């Protein structure tokens, strides 16, 4: 490549990159700092002396303690985790089977079905939540985690299906044919040969589905009413504000703790997540 002069490199590369990194990560930093700052520091007036605008000399864990002891936050964490795992499992199950059928099997209406699964993705939850609320109630699922576990797959399955479809298409057909000659039924070949090979794809789809479930808000807001049944996003929004007063320290502590599980899972599987993200777009 053409050799660039040093100053060019700094102006066109290092500085913009640094700005991006700072801009992207600052809100998290601020979240963190707020969570460990004592209330006195948080709520001081502007004109007060402020020697440490961006860090604190008296870090405190009070906000975290209050959060865990005085609210049902731990319960929310568990709820969210349980619901995310269950919906991911269901979506992977359906996505695996459907993805295989659409990628490998010939049957009438294959194209139409594939398209209709695509079309369901275009119907956003914010369009369906009103009629769904009614349906959930009539199934007596209101205010239970099952309301979410059964509805989250509606936006997770199309995504998992495409991702896995694309993945299956890269596996050579001869492998299944050989397995069928060796003695497996079509179903057996799918189970014993194709699925084990597709594990990276399954992981990608699973990670992506997990983070998407954790992030969901409107269904959780509408279908859950008891405080102890809520998920983290809904709980933080609705329960940590008492009488119009925002307890920012606690709020940020909650936001931080609520983000960490997902961020942790993500950090172990970054490559898989990125593959999932880019794979779904390609198609």
């Amino acid at each position, binding site marked *: *490549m*053409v050799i660039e002069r040093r100053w060019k490199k700094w102006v066109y*590369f290092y500085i913009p*990159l640094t700005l*991006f990194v700072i801009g992207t990560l600052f*809100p*998290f930093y601020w*979240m963190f700092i707020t969570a460990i700052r004592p209330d006195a520091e*948080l*709520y001081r007036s*502007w004109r007060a002396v402020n020697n440490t*605008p961006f860090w604190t000399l008296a870090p405190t864990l009070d906000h975290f303690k209050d959060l865990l002891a005085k609210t049902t936050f731990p319960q929310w964490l568990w709820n969210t985790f349980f619901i995310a795992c269950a919906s991911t499992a269901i979506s992977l*199950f359906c996505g695996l*089977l459907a993805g295989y059928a*659409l990628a490998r*099997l*010939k*049957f*009438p209406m*294959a194209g139409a*079905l594939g398209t209709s699964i695509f079309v*369901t993705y275009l*119907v*956003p*939850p*914010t*369009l369906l*939540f*009103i*009629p*769904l609320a*009614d*349906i959930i109630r009539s199934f007596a699922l209101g205010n239970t985690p099952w309301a979410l576990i*059964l509805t989250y*797959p*509606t936006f997770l*399955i199309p995504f998992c299906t495409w991702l896995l479809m694309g993945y299956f298409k890269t596996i050579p057909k001869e492998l299944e044919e050989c397995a069928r000659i060796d003695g497996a*039924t*079509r*179903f*057996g070949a799918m189970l014993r040969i194709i699925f084990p090979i597709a594990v990276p794809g399954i992981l990608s789809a699973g990670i992506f589905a997990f983070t998407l479930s954790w*992030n969901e*808000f*409107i269904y959780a807001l509408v279908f859950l009413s008891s405080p102890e049944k809520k998920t*983290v*996003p809904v709980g*933080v*929004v609705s329960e940590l504000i008492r009488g119009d007063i925002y307890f920012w320290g606690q709020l*940020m502590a*909650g*936001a931080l703790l*609520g*983000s960490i599980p997902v*961020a942790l899972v*993500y950090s172990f599987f*970054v490559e898989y*997540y*990125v593959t999932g993200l*880019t794979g779904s*777009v390609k198609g």
Partner: protein
Amino acid sequence: MKKPIAGGSARVEVLAPPRTARRGGGGAWLENERLLAAMLLTPTVLLLGLFIAYPFVMGVWLALSSTSVGNVGEFVGLRNFQKAWDDSIFRTAFWNTTWYTAWATVFKLTLGMWLALLLNRNFRGKRLVRASMLLPFIVPTVLSTFAWRWMFDPTFSVLNWLLFRGGFITNKLPFLSDGAYGMWCAIAVNTWRGMPFFAITLLAGLQTINPDLHEAASLDGANGWHRFWKVTWPLLKPVTLVVVVFSIIQTFSDFQLIYVLTGGGPANSTHLIATYAYQVGVATGLLGEGAAISLFMLPVLFVVVWLQLRYLRRLET
């Protein structure tokens, strides 16, 4: 053995295809292509049918009725839609949603593309940077939006403090207490949140472009900007298009961000279609009217996707 006539006149009587074997009830679906496909697709079709198709139809029916909570309504035709259209708050919300989606998408695309180009080089710590850049997208929107809300706080905003100390302003900026400012703040947060999605996907697209093309172009005398427009951008168009459409669908139907950031206020000036539908349908309990409001999203989404499909098809030929 028949001696064939070379090239031959095909005197073929093609018999009807052989009957597919039914070797004992249980075994057939494991082997038969059509039966197996039916079985494999059943769970998906059931779930999606029950929780998308059925509610969708119900939603349309609701929108055409006067149902409210605890009160089964009757068919009222297009009255709810008419009412929404006459409602000034709704018109504001519709305009807001369009404004919000348009600007956010433009910013996300530009910044995302820029970041993708930067990340396409090799440098120390690249993997770490790339992984951390996705955090805004990973972390639940509601939680990170709260952090932004704190950063925009009327009294304690750190941003105001910085600008003040930097000498840029003398009075606090009314970030969330003014309608216009509020929308721009929302656009900023949405950009912050969605830009990584663009960046990472475009980066993957960039990595499929053969570097030889760039070398050939610079040998031909093209500088960086030219190279981007003539070589990179045309090859990236398909991926960009798909990403943009996904993003438009998500942004147009967005709910969480505004709900947390402003709640639709002040004075209903920052509502989006989705948040207003919630306010009318759930908070106020007017289910029919709320459903009608949310249905207004459908035509826009439909047109966007249709345009994308057409453009993609043209690109492919």
